[in-house]
C-alpha cells in the first residue's frame, strides 16, 4: 500500500508521538519502504493456517488468590515524576 501523510499522522497520533513536519518527511519514505518490504508476506500461501494466538507452550497457568504485599511501595511512589501526597499528579484531565 501507499503510505500517505494522513496515515503517518494518524499512526503517530494513535501512538501519542508528536511529529514535526520535518520528522514526518524523514519517516514517511522509510516507513513506506519498510511496509513495502513486509508486504512480502503476501507471497505466502496462508490458506487454512491457524494464527499463533499464544506462543507459549504453557496452558492454564494460575496464581492462588492469596495476598502478598509488595514490600517497597515507597520505591514505586519515589518514581512518580510529579506527585501530591501519595498520588501521581497530572495536568487536569478534561473529559
Amino acid at each position, binding site marked *: 500500500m501507499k503510505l500517505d501523510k494522513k496515515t503517518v499522522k494518524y499512526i503517530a497520533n494513535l501512538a501519542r508521538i508528536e511529529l514535526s513536519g520535518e520528522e514526518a518527511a524523514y519517516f514517511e519514505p522509510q516507513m513506506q519502504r519498510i511496509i513495502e518490504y513486509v508486504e512480502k508476506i503476501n507471497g505466502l500461501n496462508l490458506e487454512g493456517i491457524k494464527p499463533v494466538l499464544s506462543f507459549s507452550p504453557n496452558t492454564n497457568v494460575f496464581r492462588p488468590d492469596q495476598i502478598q504485599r509488595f514490600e517497597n511501595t515507597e520505591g514505586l511512589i519515589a518514581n512518580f515524576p510529579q506527585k501530591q501526597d501519595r498520588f501521581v499528579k497530572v*495536568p487536569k484531565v478534561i473529559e
Partner: protein
Amino acid sequence: MDLHKLSGWEIAGKIKAKKLSFEEVFDYFHNRIIKFNPQLNAVVRWFDKPLEFNRNSDSPLAGVPIVIKDNICLKGKETTCASRILKGFVSPYDSTVVQKLKNAGLQILGAANMDEFAFGSSCETSCYGPVKNPWDKTRVPGGSSGGSAAVVSAGLSPVSLGSDTGGSIRQPASFCGVCGLKPTYGKVSRYGLIAFGSSFDQIGPFSRDIQDCLYLLNIISGKDPKDSTSVQAEPLKNLSVQDISGLCIGVPKEYFIEGLSEDVDKTIRQALSFFKNNGAVIKEISLPSTEYSVAVYYILASSEASSNLSRFDGIKYGHREKAESLSEVYFKTRAKGFGREAKRRIMLGTFSLSSGYYEAYYLKALKARQLIKEDFKAAFKKCDLMITPTSPTAAFKIGEKLDNPLSMYLSDIFTISASLAGLPALSVPCGFTSQGLPVGMQIIGNYFQEEMLFNLAGFYQKNTDWHKKIPQEYE
C-alpha cells in the same frame, strides 16, 4: 595474574581454593572497566562495590563478576534500556534473573550499553552513544546486546547477560568473537526484562568459554511463578565433548545465498568440514519460508513493541516533558524521550495493529509464524541440529546502516527464523575474515535441546582456539 584471560569457572575455582578473594576479583574487573570503557562505551553504569550477593554459594560461578544488559531491572539502580525516556527510573524491584545471579554468588559489576529498547543490530541507537567493537573501534559490536558482547570480548567481565528478540545476543556474539546463547522461549524467566517483543524475548548468557555459558544458563533458567510463559526443565548436565560421530547436522540451503560474504561463507564451511572430519553427518536441509522471516518478524515484534512501549508516557516514572495539558505530557514526552528507531518500530507496530490493516499485516504474520514453526519441525525430523552463519557479514562500520533501517533489519536475516520458532540457538566464534574480524556460526537446536548445542560447541572449542583469541589492545 591476567584474570581476564581465565574463564569464569576458573576464576570461581581460584576463589573456592582461597587463592583469590571476592574483592580482588571484583576490583580487577572494575578497574578494567574504568581503564577501557571510555574507548568502548560498552558499560553505561558500574558500581564501586558489587550488589549484595550470596557469599556462601556453591555454584560453579560463585564470585564471578558479571555485567548485565541495561534492560534487566536491578533493584535500587537506574535501569534505562539506553533510552532518554527512562532516565531517572530507579527500579524498586529485582528481575528474577538478577535474584538468581545474586543467589548463585555472582558479583554484578554494572549495566551494559545496548540499542535503545533493544531496537537495533548495531548499538548505535543508545542514548549513551554508540558502542565500539573491541576488534575494530570504527566498527559496530552488533546489537542490540552489543555492550554485553563487547565487555566479554575485551575482558571487562568474564561473562555477561544480554537479551535476544530477533538475534540480539547471537549477532553481537558473532561480531565480537564470543559465545552467546538465545535459550528456548520459556527457558529463562522474563520477569524484570523490559519487554520488546514479549513472544520472542529471552535473556541469555555471553562468555568466551562455552562451559561458562552452560553454567550461567543453569543459574538463570527455570520456571518462575512471576512469568506465566516460563517452563520448568532439568538443569543441564556438564559438557560431554568426547564424540560427535553420527551426529546429524543440517545445513539449511536457504542460508547460503547472495549477500553472504565470501569470508563468512568460507569460515562456516571450514567449521562444517571440521565436524564432518570428526564423524558428524552434514546434510543439506530446507527451510522454505526463510525468505519471509524478516517480514513476519518485523510485523509481529514491532506490534508487540508498540504496545509494550505505551507505558513509557511520563506519567508514572522516568522522564516527563514540561507540559501544559495531559495530551502534551504524552506527545512531548514520547517525542523527546524516544529515539528515531524506537519511533519507527512503534509506528510500524501501531500501523500493523490498527483498524483496517490488522488482517492484512498482523493476522497474516501470525499465520506465517505457524508456517515457519512447521518448517523447523519438518527439518528436525531430518537432523539433530543445524548450523548456519550467525550473520551474513562480519561487523560493519559505525554509521554504515544507520539511516537505512531496512538494510539494518536484513542483517538479522539468519537469526530471526529461530526466534520466530522459539528455538534455542547459539553463536560460537569460528574464525576471522581477511580483515581480522571475528565470524560466528549459529547452532540451532530443537526445543529445550540446549545441551546438544553446548556439547557440539564444547567439542569444537576443545579442538580449536578461536574462542581464546583476544583483541590485541585488550590482551
